[in-house]
Every structure is written in structure tokens, then in C-alpha cells.
């Protein structure tokens, strides 16, 4: 009886130990770097570069893809909470969350590496690409000034036009101003062609388009003043921004169903020539090439409303990778990222994935359409560059409000009032 009991207790202890064995620390392999990313289109190229790096240095680089990006973000956040992040990973979130990762000790400060040898590594990059990963002196997030990530490529979001469809409608040149754009839409309608398509079912795409016009209509200072609570959303300039969407609806400029369209469907619509204009990012070159290699299209800035202020577009680092500050292979991870951003590797990535390289020296060898994207990099801006960002709760109401305008449910004035009400609530909460 005692023996039986002993066996049973032993079995129970074994089951418990086995189930807990996964919780124990694995033996560290100091010659294998682990990279987590979300870029389906770049996975093959990254794996090939990793193999090349292993041949050159003997350091194995394990590339793990977790897609889609939403699932990746969840995985990274959960892994940070459990302190099981890989050596190299990316943050696909607002600067506030980026700063929370830094303050939590999850991201290494790469400033000494970038600044070494008279900023040799820093000088390889487009300044805008590094700005996404840079925290300046006195930043509102309370992060120690420095550079915390390595941009793999740069991107910007502009408008694209279908050469063949514009020609069919008799539109000789891509429109420069918003009124020219609306005229082109009417010409397209006369020949049965839909106007603009974009993935406005995704709130960030709406955020991007609306902030382009906010910069053009009122400029950065007034936008920041609004975020600080000094200018209300009921200001005529903000109503003008919202009115852009109303005009697009009223003039029938949008492809049916644009308000619930994910960007991948919008890309499909433009590639299959269902719309003459698209609002999309430079990654589209690769996407369109896959969907319709014979598509003839050009790149243009969103048509401006105000000629006194420049049309700013979202751009900067397309995808950046950071180094886990808690990793025992931190130095090896930094060395790999430095190698990855060298001219040869950047040229290879640009050619294979048709993305803009973050290394300026690799720019000479990119396709022509990509050059058009690259030519306006100096007009790029991004929420991560700004001194401060809007409260996410206010942003949500603003963007959902734009969707309400797009479905003809509410007017710009109504939305402005609703957003201002929420803004005031958030401001008074913060004061408390």
C-alpha cells in the first residue's frame, strides 16, 4: 500500500515538474540571434541575408515572421510583459508606447553606436528615417535623448494616378490643386471611371489623409496648439479639414465602399484599374507589381487646398528594428543591424522587396517609381516626429467622425463639436 502511494505521489510530482519545465530558463546560445518581424513581403529576403551573415561571421540569425501586424503587436506586448522578447524586434505603435518600452528597459539605447567614429553609422541614413527612432532633448515622454532603433527602409504615403484612365478621361496632367482634382473627377465620371480609392476602413489611413490636409490648411503650429487644447476643433480650419471629406462625397469622388475597405482591397481595386486615383504608401510598388505588372501609374502629392502652406505627407522609417536591452547578445544584435543597414544589404533589400532603402547610398539603384516617392522625402512628416500627439481617445472620435461624414450621416460642424466635447473632457481629466 505504502509502495503504491509512493509511486502515485512520485507520478504526480513528475507531471507537475514536467508541466513546469517549460517555465525554466533555457541554456543561452550566445551565437544565435533571434529576430521577430511582421513583414511578409520581406521575409524571404531577410532569411537570405541572415544566411549570408552566418556565412560571413558564423553568427546564426533566426528570422521569425509573425503576421499580420496586429497579431505581431499583441505578441510583442505580451512578450514584454512576460520578459521573453527576442534579441531584435520592432515596435509598431505610437511614440508613447515606444517610450514605454524604453522606460521599461526593453529597448537598448543605440546612440553611442550611431555616434561612434564621427557619427559614421548615423550618416548612412536619411535623417527622416532616423527621426522616427530618435528622442530629442526635453521630449514630452521623459525619455533620455538618443536614437533607439535602426530603420530598415523608408516609406511615404502619397497619391497615385492611373496614366491610362486619366488619358481616357482627357485629363492631361495629374492635378496639383484640390479644385483641379475635383475637375478631374468629373471628367472621369463622364467616361464611367471611379475616382479615388483608399483603405479608409483602417483608421490610420484616414488619420494620415486628414493630417496631410490639416498641415496644408493650418500648419504644424496650429495643430500642436489644438493638441495642447489652445485651439478648439470647432475652429474654421478644422472644419475645412473635415469638409475635404464631405466634398469628396458630394462630388462622387470616392469608389463605392471605401469607408469599410481594408487597404489590401483598396490596393487590389487600383491595381485592377477600378479607380483612377489611390492614396497609398511606397510599399504599393511591390504590391501592384505582384497584382498587375502592366499597370501604368505615376506618383503625385495629395492636391493642395492652401497654396500658402506646403502639403506635408506621412513618411519616415517604414520599418525599424530595435535591440532588446535585456539580451545577453545585445552587442551581436547591434552588429547584425549595422551590417543589415550597409549599402550592399540595403541595395539587395530594395531590389528584392521594391521598398525605399533607409541607407542614402543605396538610393541610386532603385526603380523609377520608387525614385518619385523618394524625391519628396523632405516633405515627409510623421506623428512620431511631432512634439506631441493627440490623446488617442480624441483621435478615435475624430476618425470615426470622418467615417460618419463619408457615409453622409453627419456634417463636418457636428463632428467638430463632438470631437471638441471629448477633447474638453480629456483635458479636464488630465487637470484632475
Amino acid at each position, binding site marked *: 500500500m505504502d509502495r503504491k502511494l509512493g509511486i502515485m505521489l512520485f507520478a504526480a510530482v513528475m507531471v*507537475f515538474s514536467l508541466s513546469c519545465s517549460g517555465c525554466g530558463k533555457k541554456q543561452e546560445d550566445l551565437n544565435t540571434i533571434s529576430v521577430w518581424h511582421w513583414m511578409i513581403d520581406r521575409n524571404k529576403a531577410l532569411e537570405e541575408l541572415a544566411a549570408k551573415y552566418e556565412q560571413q561571421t558564423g553568427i546564426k540569425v533566426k528570422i521569425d515572421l509573425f503576421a499580420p501586424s496586429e497579431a505581431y503587436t499583441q505578441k510583442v506586448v505580451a512578450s514584454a510583459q512576460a520578459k521573453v522578447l527576442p534579441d531584435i524586434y520592432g515596435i509598431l505603435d*505610437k511614440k508613447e508606447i515606444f517610450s514605454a518600452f524604453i522606460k521599461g528597459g526593453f529597448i537598448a539605447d543605440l546612440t553611442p553606436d550611431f555616434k561612434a567614429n564621427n557619427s559614421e553609422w548615423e550618416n548612412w541614413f536619411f535623417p527622416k528615417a532616423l527621426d522616427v527612432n530618435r528622442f530629442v532633448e526635453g521630449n514630452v515622454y521623459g525619455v533620455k535623448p538618443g536614437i533607439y532603433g535602426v530603420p530598415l527602409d523608408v516609406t511615404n504615403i502619397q497619391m497615385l494616378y492611373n496614366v491610362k484612365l486619366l488619358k481616357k478621361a482627357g485629363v492631361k496632367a495629374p492635378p496639383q490643386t484640390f479644385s483641379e482634382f475635383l475637375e478631374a473627377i468629373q471628367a472621369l465620371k463622364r467616361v464611367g471611371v471611379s475616382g479615388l480609392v483608399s483603405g479608409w476602413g483602417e483608421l490610420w489611413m484616414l488619420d494620415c489623409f486628414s493630417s496631410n490636409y490639416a498641415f496644408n490648411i493650418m500648419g504644424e503650429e496650429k495643430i500642436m496648439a489644438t493638441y495642447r487644447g489652445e485651439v478648439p476643433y470647432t475652429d474654421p480650419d478644422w472644419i475645412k479639414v473635415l469638409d475635404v471629406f464631405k466634398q469628396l462625397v458630394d462630388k462622387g469622388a470616392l469608389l463605392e465602399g471605401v469607408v469599410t475597405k481594408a487597404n489590401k482591397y483598396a490596393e487590389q481595386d487600383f491595381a485592377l*484599374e477600378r479607380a483612377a486615383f489611390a492614396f497609398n504608401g511606397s510599399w504599393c510598388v511591390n504590391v501592384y507589381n505582384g497584382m498587375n505588372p502592366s499597370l501604368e501609374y505615376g506618383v503625385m502629392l495629395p492636391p493642395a487646398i492652401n497654396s500658402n502652406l506646403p502639403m506635408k505627407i506621412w513618411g519616415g522609417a517604414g520599418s525599424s528594428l530595435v535591440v532588446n536591452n535585456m539580451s545577453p547578445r545585445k552587442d551581436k544584435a547591434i552588429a547584425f543591424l549595422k551590417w543589415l543597414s550597409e549599402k550592399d544589404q540595403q541595395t539587395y533589400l530594395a531590389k528584392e522587396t521594391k521598398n525605399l532603402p533607409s541607407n542614402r547610398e543605396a538610393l541610386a539603384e532603385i526603380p523609377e517609381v520608387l525614385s518619385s516617392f523618394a524625391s519628396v522625402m523632405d516633405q515627409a512628416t510623421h506623428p512620431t516626429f511631432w512634439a506631441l500627439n493627440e490623446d488617442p481617445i480624441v483621435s478615435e472620435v475624430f476618425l470615426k467622425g470622418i467615417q460618419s461624414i463619408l457615409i453622409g450621416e453627419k456634417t463636418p460642424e457636428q463632428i467638430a463639436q463632438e470631437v471638441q466635447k471629448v477633447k474638453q473632457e480629456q483635458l479636464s481629466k488630465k487637470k484632475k
Partner: protein
Amino acid sequence: MSVVATNPTHLKPRTLIIQDNLKNLSFIMPAVILFSIFYIYPFFEIFRLSLQDWNGISPDRSWVGLANFAELMKDKVWWTSVWHASYITLIALTFQNALAFALALACDRQIRMKKFYQVIFFLPPVLSEVVVGLIWQWILNAGVQGGQQIGILNYWLVQSGLPGLVNNWLSNPETALTCIAVVHCWKGFGWGFIMLLAGLQTIDHQLYEAAKVDGAGAWSTFRHVTLPMMLPVISVVVILTILGSMQVFVLIKAMVSQGLGYHTEVPVTRILLAMQGTNRFGYACSMGVTFGIILVCLSLLSKTFGSKTKQ
């Protein structure tokens, strides 16, 4: 005295009782430990987080007590999202389950190609929700190219001489949620069908024969034999329908993304937005706890209703 004599534990020495208890514990301990780690601990952690203000990353979490719940009670968008999920659930409870029951009744009879129909009806549930969403998005597409409808439904309406019924199905607030509900029913009715069919096949056929001998007609047999015998299965199907429909999410993401203002928001999309969009983990957890309580209440309610009907 007699009570003591009939209770065997009183005959055992104390050490044997302890050994017995230890033996029993050794059997259940692994399960208890695993259950505690993967179910009980996360539940308490979610509840604890719902009382805090936390962005999900920062080591600083501030204790806010019931403030998240108080805010949630006043959150109109949240309650609208609960109503949207309830609307989808109501359609699923009626349309989806009625269809499943009708088809199960048809397949319970001696009909030709019975197995084939069973396979066909069970196909939608085994498809991924993302795939179903994409297929239906294609069917309900409202786009036009070269004067022709791209979406199959609109194309078919035009070809059938009903161009007046052509609609922007997924981008019209009046039709979007109903379209999602219908697709959800199309995807889900197969589960109900299989469970109800299995239930129907357990009913003793002698009962039907007895009803026939007593002169009962088809409707009377259904009402007095089939329905009472099926009540336990129906009760389970109802509970599973409520739980599945209230938590609809993937289909919405696949069909309308984050679109249409607040017209297609359901509780799970609000929880996700609170976590990822506004980085309010504490508030998201308070939503999760509240939503869990709503689901438990609905399940208990339907169970009680099922028991009362049975009586």
C-alpha cells in the same frame, strides 16, 4: 451506534484515512494545478487589472478602484456595441437555429443523398471566419467597373431585372450589421444542425409509432413528441449560439475592417480598441469582466428558461 457501524471510515485507522486522502489528492493535483495556472490566475489577474490604470507596458500601474467600471457604465459606444452583438445574437437564435432545426428534421427522414446534404450543411462551420468574411465581402461588393457591378449579389440583382434593389450592402449603416448577422448565421448554422440532428436520432422511434397509433398528425407529433424530447439539446444549442454570437469579431474585421463609424462595433472590437488603439489595458479588462458577467447571466437565463419549459 448503528450509524457508526455503517460508516466504513470510522473503522479505518487515522493513518489510512490520511493515505486515502493523499492518494485522491495525487490524482487531482496535476489537473488542479494546471487549471489554477491557466484559468483561475488569469481570471483574477484580469479582475485586478480592471481596477488599475495601465498602458500595457509601463511598470507603473495606478490603482483606480471601480473608476473603470463607473466610466464603462456611462460609455454610450460600449452599450451600443453590446446592443449590436445582441442584435446579431437575436437573428442567430431565431433565423439560424430555425434553419438548423428544419434542415436537421429533413435529414432525419429517409431521403436520398442524406449523407451528402449533411456534409454540405457542415461545410461553412469548418471554413475559417477570415475566409468566409472575404468570400462574402466579394459577394456583397458594391463597386462598379466599366458600368458593370463587381459584387455577385448586385450583379445578380441587375441581371434579374431588380436594379432598384442594388445596394452598398456593407457601407450602408442600415444594412451592414444585418449583412454581418446573416453571414454569421450562414457560417454557424452547421453546428446547430449537427447537434440537433444527433439529438433527433436519439429519439426512440417507438414513440413516433405510438403517436401514430393514437392518431396524432405531423404537427401534433412534432409538438408533443419531438419538441419535448429535444429540449435538452435545444437548450445547449441556444447557450452555444448566445456565446458564439455575442463574441462575433473576426467576421466583422474581415468584412468591414474598422469602418462605418460606430455602426458595426461589438464588445470585442471595443475591447481590442481599448487595448491597442488607446492603450488602456485597465479599461479593456473592465470591459472584459463586464462582458463576461453579461454572458454568464445570459447563459443562466437561457438555462433557467430551458428548465422551466421542460417542466
